[in-house]
């Protein structure tokens, strides 16, 4: 069902005819994200190019009580940008200018639709570095990353998106334009609203540009590979390294099943006999990188690694990381349906969690494979199943319930970096108290009293 003609007409006046899509194939193209099974059609897709246009659209939406869902590249893996109540799909991909790279103050101001990879390339040309590296970086937009508080392998050393967020321009659901935060490293001036909007999964305000903190490019980096006879011992090694006085940039874990599938797709010379592989990256000044690499190798040996060695050359290092990036597609490509989770536990409990996941797999007679950013306790256990096979799928869902329960038991969280969105709504009440959920709703209504912005997300 399409929106009333009068509203469509007004939208066209705001963004121009080129900025409005209503054909069925176009609506279909904005009905999904990177999750497996969520899909819902918007009634119109709108491409604003300025903050003022966003403001006008939001005013119109508030007046007409039309739901608005903001979408960048749609690489979200929790259902965040899916317009489950239809309405306006506000697509930010044409707000894609890098506004100001400030080399003197190590900041950059970018519009919300800039692709992370494009930003990285522009910064590299200036000797600058923005560390957060969600693995969707080739396509993901800055706005989406801020909204989900995204992160990736380098979080071990460099943290997550919010650690680099200094300020933003945001538009409230009623159309009010706010300039929040600033451009300084330190800033305690009232509640830190940019930090509140960061990670709010597009439910509080529409972010139109952001000010980010930058670092100098590390001089060099080194990759180390270690193999283990069990996933548990790899988990123990991660703990040993984290407490051993060295901070690698990345510590990634890949289990044997995934290694096999990656190698089948692209022969990279991975150690296929290993039950688990840990991949480390260290970066910084050459002498400290060498010293840290030696430390990691030593600690891995002590922790019982079967084989541990640095990548032979740049080419091999690249191959190892390519294999890691191919991990998810290797999983998805080998199973009709995958329930890929995103739990996080304290680093000291990784080994326990891995054991528990193995038990759960046995109990429900399922294949559950493990890949993830072990260095910060963030694992992606993935349950292989088939939506079309009712019994199998219901066992898989029970397994997921148990995995979440275990993560919480170990003092962890049900999402490390993907967000709650639609995928994990039903688990929210297990993860946080009803008082906290009530407070979240109060915050939501302070920003969005009419509940038109990205409705239906985070809680049920």
């Amino acid at each position, binding site marked *: 069902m399409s929106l009333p003609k009068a509203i469509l007409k007004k939208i066209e006046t705001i963004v121009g005819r080129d900025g409005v899509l209503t054909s069925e194939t176009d609506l279909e*193209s904005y009905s999904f994200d990177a999750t497996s099974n969520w899909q819902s059609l918007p009634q119109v897709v709108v491409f604003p190019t300025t903050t003022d246009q966003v403001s006008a659209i939001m005013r119109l939406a508030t007046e007409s009580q039309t739901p608005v869902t903001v979408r960048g590249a749609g690489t979200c893996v929790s259902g965040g940008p899916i317009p489950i109540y239809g309405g306006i799909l506000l697509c930010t991909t044409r707000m*894609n200018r890098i506004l100001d790279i400030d080399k003197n103050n190590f900041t950059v101001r970018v519009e919300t639709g800039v692709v992370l990879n494009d930003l990285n390339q522009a910064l590299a040309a200036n000797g600058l570095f923005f560390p957060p590296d969600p693995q*969707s970086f080739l396509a993901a937009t800055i706005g989406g990353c801020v909204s989900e508080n995204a992160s990736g392998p380098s979080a071990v050393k460099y943290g997550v998106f919010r650690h680099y967020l200094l300020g933003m321009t945001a538009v409230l659901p009623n159309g009010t334009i706010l300039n929040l935060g600033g451009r300084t490293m330190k800033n305690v001036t009232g509640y830190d609203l940019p930090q509140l909007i960061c990670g709010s999964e597009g439910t509080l305000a529409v972010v139109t540009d952001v000010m980010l903190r930058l670092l100098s490019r590390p001089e060099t980096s080194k990759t180390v590979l270690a193999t283990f006879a069990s996933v548990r011992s790899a988990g123990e090694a991660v703990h040993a390294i984290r407490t051993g006085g060295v901070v690698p940039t990345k510590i990634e874990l890949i289990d044997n099943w995934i290694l096999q599938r990656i190698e089948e797709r692209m022969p990279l010379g991975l150690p296929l006999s290993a039950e688990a592989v840990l991949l480390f990256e260290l970066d910084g000044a050459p002498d400290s990188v060498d010293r840290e690499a030696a430390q990691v190798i030593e600690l891995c040996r002590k922790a019982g690694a079967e084989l541990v060695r640095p990548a032979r050359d740049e080419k091999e290092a690249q191959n190892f990381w390519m294999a890691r990036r191919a991990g998810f*597609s290797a999983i*998805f490509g080998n199973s009709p349906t995958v329930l890929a989770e995103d739990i996080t536990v304290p680093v000291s409990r990784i080994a326990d969690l891995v054991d528990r996941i193995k038990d759960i797999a046995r109990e429900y007679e399922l294949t559950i494979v493990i890949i993830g950013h072990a260095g910060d306790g963030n694992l992606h256990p993935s349950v292989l199943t088939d939506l079309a096979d009712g019994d199998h799928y219901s066992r898989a869902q029970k397994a997921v319930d148990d995995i979440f329960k275990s993560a919480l038991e170990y003092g962890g969280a049900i999402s490390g970096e993907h967000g709650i969105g639609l995928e994990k709504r039903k688990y929210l009440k297990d993860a946080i108290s009803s008082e906290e959920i009530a407070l979240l709703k109060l915050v939501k209504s302070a920003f969005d009293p009419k509940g038109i912005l990205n409705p239906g997300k985070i809680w049920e």
Partner: protein
Amino acid sequence: MADRISVGDANRCMKCGFCMSKCPVYRTDYMESHVARSRNILIREVAEGKRPPDAEYQEALSWCLLCKRCETVCPARVPSTDINLAARTALAEKGGLSLVQKIIHHLILKHRSALARILGLSVILPGTRLLDRGGKPLRHLADLALVLAGKVAFPKFTASFLANRLPHRTQPAPGTTQRGRLAFFPGCNYEFFFTGVGLDVVSALSRSGFEVIYPEGQTCCGLAVFNTGDQDTARRMAETNLKVLSSFDHVITGCASCGTALKAYKEWFDEGHPLSGQARQFSETVQDFSEFMARQDLGGLTAPEGFSTVTYHDPCHLRGHQGVSEAPRKILGAVQGMNFVEMDMAEKCCGQGGSFGIKHPEASLALLAQKMESVKRTGAQAIVTSCPGCTLQLMDGAKRHGLSVEIMHISRLFKNRTIPPAGDENK
């Protein structure tokens, strides 16, 4: 073949969206419906009967340059280009092909030279409406008129077809060591329109010591027909070519698109088809001119007069479809007295994309503008390439953006070659 790509392969897409980073069309209009991920979902839904294969769907399938850039970053290795072609074929089988298309395909098959003559004529005749379609002129063919009128210097559009200018057999040039016998497949463009390129290719081969046979009875490679989804007609074209070309150990073409087709003949015939074995063997004998020449001695190459700086444009059909990108650069690097400057994103599509440029002129021109920006920054006097489609598009681009660059087929670099080539074993 047992595992021909089908629309079912669209299921392998996991919607990660990496294709968006490489898709030239998406990176210009930022519309999700124009990128492989979204198209794969549409194709899947039509295959499952959840949505009709209507005009909107046909339109969605047409928004692809078939350049294969998306496949270079796809972690799930989804063959999105071939999936799109399979979907177009399914559509054509359901009657998605217009009567005009069917007639033209048939004419190409049966009366190729006559059709080329009519086409040539229609370009010359003033006021002809044959090239107009709903008010939108067919840009590139219309530009041929400018070539004819002498407003564009290169390449010379010749009144005489290649068949009248090239003998059946060209001997190795005098003074060279005989190195073997080759068959030359010019393809429609070098056969009828840019015949000078056809002659340059043959001359370069002959000066390298090869006897070049120009077999009679060749027809269109079939690629453009195949890409509309009319695979039956395309296969009949392939059959004709197999008949006259299969007896050669080496078949050389100077056209990136024809090379793509000839090398794909092995996939055009199913396992059980009587010609599948022959097609498989044949495809192995095919090489692009630059691919072949890069393996030969490259001594004695000197810059064409007036071209001290040149750049290179990778045709999608050569780099994306055939994986040939080093060979032309090796040749360019071997030319004495000429500075070869890489342009930014030489591998990015020029926007022609077969029928894409005709169906979506605005998007095509936006891509062309990006390409011309890259060219401008190199300061080159010529863009070397090896695809007639790209050539037409780039000629158009030079004109529109006021650049004085020539678009040059790579065989032209062999024109000033001294004989015998330096490094020849007789020397």
